[in-house]
């Protein structure tokens, strides 16, 4: 059975002025439904680039990316946007909440780009309740702690019932206690069947994943499966 996302001989080259940077060098990866994968590696190893390709935010310079067995290189920008809206959830290191909107409105916003959710307001409330933020749903991001903001961001990522949740250094701006709370949320979501791909420097998080992919210089240096 094919994975929900496949990377085949993927290369990504960035042009920085006259210099070409090989961010990814022939990556092969299959992400199966329900997996919890962590991607680790030193800075500049290509972790975020890989996550962006998995999340259909970027296109490879060479190689193929398949999403649910579809070669995404032939898809238009609008088709990629639709896939992102309906099937992928993103969580970022800096939370990336919209400062003018309340927590609930931030979560609701994700539903604006897809037609999957019938009652976005109610669903946003449910998700925030699930994230233990019921009393904070009408607060704006600047009135929330880092941990609370990241939980709002996770609720937003879950709004359209994505197939896969991608997190880029989700604990990078959080203290260790909050990081552990977040890890528990990820584990719970994964146990409910959500596919998770987390880019992290945090070994506590990485070690909880079922599969750890070690990247170095744009290549998969090592891959550890824990039989999760």
């Amino acid at each position, binding site marked *: 059975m094919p994975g929900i996302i496949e990377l085949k001989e993927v290369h990504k080259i960035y042009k920085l002025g006259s210099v070409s940077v090989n961010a990814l060098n022939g990556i092969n990866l299959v992400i199966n439904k329900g997996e919890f994968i962590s991607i680790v590696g030193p800075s500049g190893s290509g972790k975020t680039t890989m996550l962006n390709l998995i999340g259909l935010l970027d296109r490879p310079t060479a190689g193929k990316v398949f999403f649910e067995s579809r070669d995404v290189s032939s898809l238009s920008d609008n088709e990629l946007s639709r896939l*992102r809206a309906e099937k992928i959830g993103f969580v970022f290191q800096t939370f990336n909440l919209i400062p003018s909107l309340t927590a609930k409105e931030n979560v609701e916003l994700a539903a*604006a*780009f897809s037609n999957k959710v019938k009652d976005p307001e109610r669903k946003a409330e449910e998700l925030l309740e699930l994230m233990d933020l019921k009393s904070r749903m009408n607060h704006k991001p600047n009135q929330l702690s880092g941990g609370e903001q990241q939980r709002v961001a996770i609720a*937003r990522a879950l709004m359209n019932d994505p197939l896969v949740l991608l997190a880029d250094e989700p604990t990078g701006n959080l203290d260790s206690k909050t990081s552990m709370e977040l890890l528990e949320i990820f584990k719970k979501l994964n146990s409910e069947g959500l596919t998770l791909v987390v880019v992290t420097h945090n070994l506590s998080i990485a070690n909880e994943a079922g599969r750890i992919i070690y990247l170095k210089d744009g290549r998969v240096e090592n891959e550890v499966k824990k039989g999760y």
Partner: protein
Amino acid sequence: MKLRKAISYSSRNLSRNKLRNSMVIMGIILSVILGGVVIGVVNGIKEYYTSSIYEAGFNVIFVISGKTGVGGGFYPAAKPLIVSDVRELKNLPDIKAVSPLFIAGVFRFGDNVTYLIGADEDLSLSASLTLYKGRFVNSNDSSSQAIPVVLGYNIWQYFLNQSININSDLNLLLEPYSLTYGKGNPKSVELHVIGLLDKRAQVPGLGIDPNNVFFTDLVHAYKIFNVTDLSKAYVDGAVASTPSFQDLDNASNEIVSFLESKGYSEKTDFTVISQKDALRYIDRVFVQINNFINVIWAVVLTIGSLSVLIVMVITVRERYKEIGTLRSLGARRSDIMILFLLEASWLSILGIVLGSVIGIIVIEALKQYFEFIKFVTFPVILQTYAIILPEIFLFSLLFALYPAYRAARIDPVQALKYE
């Protein structure tokens, strides 16, 4: 993205950078006020002049002894027109009524100057003078001892006691003054009021306000200068009317031909101005003024719209990361473009709404200080806003297109990296 959601989302962003957004809104408010005041005043004055000409009589031709233009300037006639020649104009095919006019002197009421003007009965018909009360002068009045007068509206309403009525007798100090017969010593004259005129519009460019006139018959007017042979008496002009507006040009030509056949020269002795000429003159003048105003308006519009452009460019630059986030959530390029255009629209709409209200208040306030702004009536303001407000909105959107397009083209990966 659904439009309702996009409108709501873009409106929420107005609360960010309140100071900067306020400055843009202020720019648009100033554009609306400037547009309202400048264009409104020009439209108002034009409206006033045009309606005044229509009110001056339906199909009127002014014949002036001497050379003048609608816009002003006067050169006395080398050979002044005489009463008998003017009265003969009535026999021309396209003339319905005609009356000579002779200015016999001046009455002063404080700073207000009023005129004693001699005319025939036909004047009420040719100049569309309507009576509030009483009757107009006629040939039967010539034998009376006191000077029979029909009072212009301002005279009986403001300058004299308002209780004045027909058959009232007045004793006023007249300063005899005629362009052709010269100036006489001030003298007390007996006046007998036979009619009161309704208020009517002044004819632009023709100097005398009919509301400030004592009309009398020609016999009494000339008697002030001891002129008894009316057939040879010099007139200051005449008012003729035609059966229809279409006849004005023909009638003007007939008047010119007739007077030239009597030995007058159009180059030096008389001027014929029809209602059509006056309207044409006003159109000519206002085309030039409008062109000038349009240039100023284009500059104002550009400055207002540039403020939107500059702020939207800064906003897009500041919100790179947000654009990346929205793209990661599934926003299409067109969604991003619409969001930024809606934000520009909000700024523009707020500026337009506030500017319109403040503009009306400013115009009303200015009316107390500047006489000419009184022409900017509410309908004129609405008429002006109907033109300038859509222009401001469209220009703002046009200038916001570039930053909105730039925002839509931003690479989401680069946008998410942006700090």
